């Protein structure tokens, strides 16, 4: 599962509220779609849990369902307390899990 964390805006100061965009390459199968050739249902496969941590402290926990688009985006606000590491742990219903980190480096 390829992932990407983006902080918007790119430069920010401590105390500023920024947007954290987390994206993942994931099929987000609903389990309701049929294989065109065989007619068999394609099993559900979707990200079901995402945790945003800052310096190992939980900021936001998400329970995600299959209605999110393919290659989903999850965006939250975050009040930058200072420098540190933002970590996003995403898990799908098949047990696949991926950890993505991004350094938080406020200016000034």
């Amino acid at each position: 599962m390829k992932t990407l964390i983006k902080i918007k805006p790119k430069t920010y100061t401590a105390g500023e509220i920024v947007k954290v965009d987390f994206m993942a390459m994931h099929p987000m199968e609903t389990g309701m779609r049929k294989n065109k050739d065989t007619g068999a249902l394609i099993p559900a496969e979707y990200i079901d849990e995402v945790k945003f941590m800052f310096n190992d402290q939980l900021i936001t926990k998400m329970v995600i369902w299959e209605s999110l688009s393919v290659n989903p985006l999850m965006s939250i606000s975050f009040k930058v307390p200072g420098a540190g590491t933002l970590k996003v742990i995403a898990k799908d219903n098949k047990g696949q899990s991926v950890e993505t980190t991004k350094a938080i480096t406020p200016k000034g």
Partner: protein
Amino acid sequence: MERRSFLKGFGAAAACAVALPTIASAAEEKKSAGPNEMNFETAVAAITGGKALMPSAKVKIKAPEIAENGAVVPVKVTVESPMTSKDYVKAIHLLASKNGNVRCANIYLTPANGEAFFGTRIKLGGTQDVVAIAEMSDGTFLSAKQNVKVTIGGCG
């Protein structure tokens, strides 16, 4: 995403809606495979625990009025709140009223967020309401909705 088969899938899901167990928390009930159908009333009840839902201007939902492609519909939810440890938004729940599984995401926030916001992209099986429920730290549930028309675009 093949649009037609996607729509068909939702139709089929609606046709074979299953009886749902009573659920204390929507978050706890998860199946590892297969469709998770859940209708709107059941999902709302699971979130609020039967408490009343109060439509509120504090919850702002931003989604296109018309989406040319139901597979990718941008949605942003913002809830007015000071986000202090005494007064904050505990969770934002996003639902699509007519999808096979109406639940899209349950976002559990903390004061560290600084602002109650959630942005995403969702799949809509057809024209329907996108509903946001804000679970406040005082135990109340505020909500807002927006209708999104899903149309058919031009060449594939």
